[in-house]
């Protein structure tokens, strides 16, 4: 279970560029729950994900994952518990290393990296079996440098690498946003299948409301560094894209509702 407790983060504090990226955010996610985070640009959705991933340390609050207080853990240490897929399809893999070698690195996530050979015959057979489930024909190209693959293929492999050790939490940071529509649909489908098959706890930031409706079990909506909406259970099942749009609209309307509007309405609302 992931438990985020009153986490705050301000970037460039005390300067003109001060951004209050997270404001007292609390969120807990049950094991096996696939949660989507949506929000406008700068709403703090990616910052929240990065807070969990450990890219920075929050100014206040705590983060617990699977019984560990990981608030102060460095990024690489959290990787023992967390699998990640980034927006940039090139960010999750080492381009000049082969598919098998990349997967070998992922396989040892959270374990001691020994001086034994990384890619053995038996390991490659295992890799081929699991890569075959992607249905991209990559099982025959395990020795090819990953840099020769398309963005969609790389992202699918990154996803496979992220879940290879069955992490306590899978973080997906707009992982289909930089792909062409067809690859994006393919990776989204794989995401759904893999998370369901491995019964993973996952947190996905997405810009696509359709994706938020289609994939996760729960939707969190963020705005200005705070959670403004949380669709769970039957509310999540009911929600459709227009409902999410309406919710965004509502949040924005509330923002535009300032003191001058209140004054105008005082005179006219009767």
């Amino acid at each position: 279970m992931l438990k985020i407790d009153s986490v705050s983060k301000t970037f460039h504090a005390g300067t003109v560029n001060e951004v209050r990226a997270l404001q007292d955010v609390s969120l807990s996610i049950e094991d096996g729950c696939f949660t989507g985070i949506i929000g406008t640009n700068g709403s703090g959705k990616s910052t929240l994900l990065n807070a969990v991933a450990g890219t920075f340390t929050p100014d206040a609050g705590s983060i617990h994952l699977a019984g560990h207080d990981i608030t102060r853990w460095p990024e690489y240490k959290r990787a023992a518990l967390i699998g990640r897929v980034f927006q940039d399809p090139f960010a999750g893999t080492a381009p000049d290393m082969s598919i098998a070698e990349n997967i070998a690195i992922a396989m040892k996530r959270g374990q001691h990296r020994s001086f034994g050979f990384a890619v053995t015959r038996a390991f490659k057979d295992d890799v081929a079996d699991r890569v075959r489930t992607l249905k991209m024909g990559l099982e025959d190209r395990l020795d090819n440098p990953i840099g020769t693959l398309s963005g969609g293929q790389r992202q699918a492999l990154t996803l496979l690498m992220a879940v290879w050790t069955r992490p306590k939490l899978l973080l997906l940071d707009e992982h289909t946003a930089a792909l062409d529509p067809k690859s994006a649909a393919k990776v989204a489908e794989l995401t759904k299948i893999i998370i369901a098959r491995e019964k993973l706890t996952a947190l996905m930031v997405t810009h696509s409301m359709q994706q938020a409706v289609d994939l996760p079990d729960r939707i969190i909506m963020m705005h200005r560094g705070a959670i403004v909406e949380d669709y769970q259970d039957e509310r999540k099942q009911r929600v459709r894209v227009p409902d999410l749009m309406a919710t965004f609209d509502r949040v924005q309307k509330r923002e535009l509702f300032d003191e001058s509007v209140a004054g105008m309405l005082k005179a006219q609302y009767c």
Partner: protein
Amino acid sequence: MSLVIGAFTMGLILSLLSLGMFISFRMIRFTDITVDGSITLGASISALMIVEGYSPWLAMLVSTLGGALAGSVTGILYTRFKIQEILSGILMMTALYSINLRVMGKSNIPLLDVTTISTGMEGFFEKITATASKVDILGWQVPIGDLAVFMTSAMIAIFVAVLLCGFLFTHAGTALRAAGSNPQMVRAQGVNNNTMIVFSLAMANGLVALAGSLLAQYQGFADVQMGIGMMVWGLASIIIGEALVGKAGIGLTIAGVILGTILFRLLIAIALRWGLNPNDLKLVTAFFVFAALVAPAWFGMLSRKISGGLNYVKN
């Protein structure tokens, strides 16, 4: 012929420098200036120990460890204290200048009539050739001493190359390569990037110091100035080596780096033979590296300009 043997031997010794720099510059992409200091460190430690009567093999080992220590410090300056990578290297290199003077106690130590690592090999050759001082190879008379140094260097270079190559295919080595290729990825895969950098720099400078140790024994002296420009030589060798093998796997690239170093030494030997002023050597090398660095971009631009011009004419 002794010129060729000399260039080969020098090339084999310096290929250890190139391999070390291959780890730092190419594998983890760290512009490590420590090299100029750590090669001298290796030479000074070995010279001192050999003069003091220690086994040359032990001297070599201690030199390697000394280089590794120097590399770690550079790495720690960079990772722990967030000093820029070039500045970290410069700080360590500058510090090493004094350290080397301290180690040697003076600015140079001559190694005359001492036991070096090739002494054993020399004895072996003397035995099989029945005390002849020269052997006949393809019609050339080659001094046994030169041959022994050559063989020893070759053995060490090959041993190190095989070891390095093997290491890079282990779990740890794969992670190291990935750390240079995509730091964000390896962090997400649970690798401590900082540890990787420190470890790689230790390994790289260990090899560089090993090269220094062999160089001192081969040249017959250690000098506090001997490291100047070594980094650029190493870089030039790597560039030549990569050009030789093209885009290839790790094993081939390592072989290429060794061949590149040898080829580079041969070119220098030939140039010197043709009357290149030795004082100009570093300038020429620097210019060569400069050209190798800018040429690809420059040629690309040029060809675009030409084709653009052609299109313009066509239109």
